[in-house]
């Protein structure tokens, strides 16, 4: 069955450093992969999408990579700020429209001032 893992349940880093979050998947061939941010008591908010034929995508301080050989996506936040503290969820999705939209368990990031 499909399995999605995110590197750690919680990650603490110092302000100004780069946070790197990992998403690994098995028994799955996603056509694209999305990353979401979820703040406590709120719904997830879409951040970035990367397709299987793209190696890297950037948006401001965010960078996502997608390695279909390793079955892995890396999510980087450069020059991290305390306001970046949240839970980050990855969501690989297959090409078929009706396929499940499955989320990883999430990584709770805390950026310490």
């Amino acid at each position, binding site marked *: 069955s499909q399995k999605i893992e995110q590197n750690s349940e919680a990650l603490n880093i110092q302000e100004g450093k780069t946070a790197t979050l990992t998403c690994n998947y098995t028994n799955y061939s996603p056509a*694209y992969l*999305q990353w*979401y941010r979820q703040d406590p*008591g*709120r*719904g*997830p*908010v*879409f951040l970035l*999408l990367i397709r299987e034929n793209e190696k890297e995508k950037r948006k401001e301080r965010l960078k996502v990579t997608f390695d279909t050989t390793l079955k892995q996506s890396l999510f980087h936040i450069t020059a991290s700020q305390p306001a970046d503290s949240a*839970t980050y*969820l990855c*969501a690989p999705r297959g090409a078929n*429209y*009706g396929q*499940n*939209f*499955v*989320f990883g*368990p*999430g990584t709770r990031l805390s950026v310490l001032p």
Partner: protein
Amino acid sequence: DTAVSQTPKYLVTQMGNDKSIKCEQNLGHDTMYWYKQDSKKFLKIMFSYNNKELIINETVPNRFSPKSPDKAHLNLHINSLELGDSAVYFCASSQSGELFFGEGSRLTVL
């Protein structure tokens, strides 16, 4: 103007009761979803509707019944509530990619 709105935000009820959660989206999207997020924060899909037609129905007890009167609305009715139904339920919509989520409805079954 809220894109995906859910009501109620909080719901506390006794075991055995029946309750409903409503969801509306004003984005003009064709597809709507219900997700359940349990105490461990794992977000699991329950149902997906495309243009009022059910396209995904995960292994959810048949006490849960979604209803989509039109493509802007997807309601969730739960019969005979159990303690394990306590969770946050999220409604979401999409057109061709990213999901837009509501703020969630926290259900507590006592």
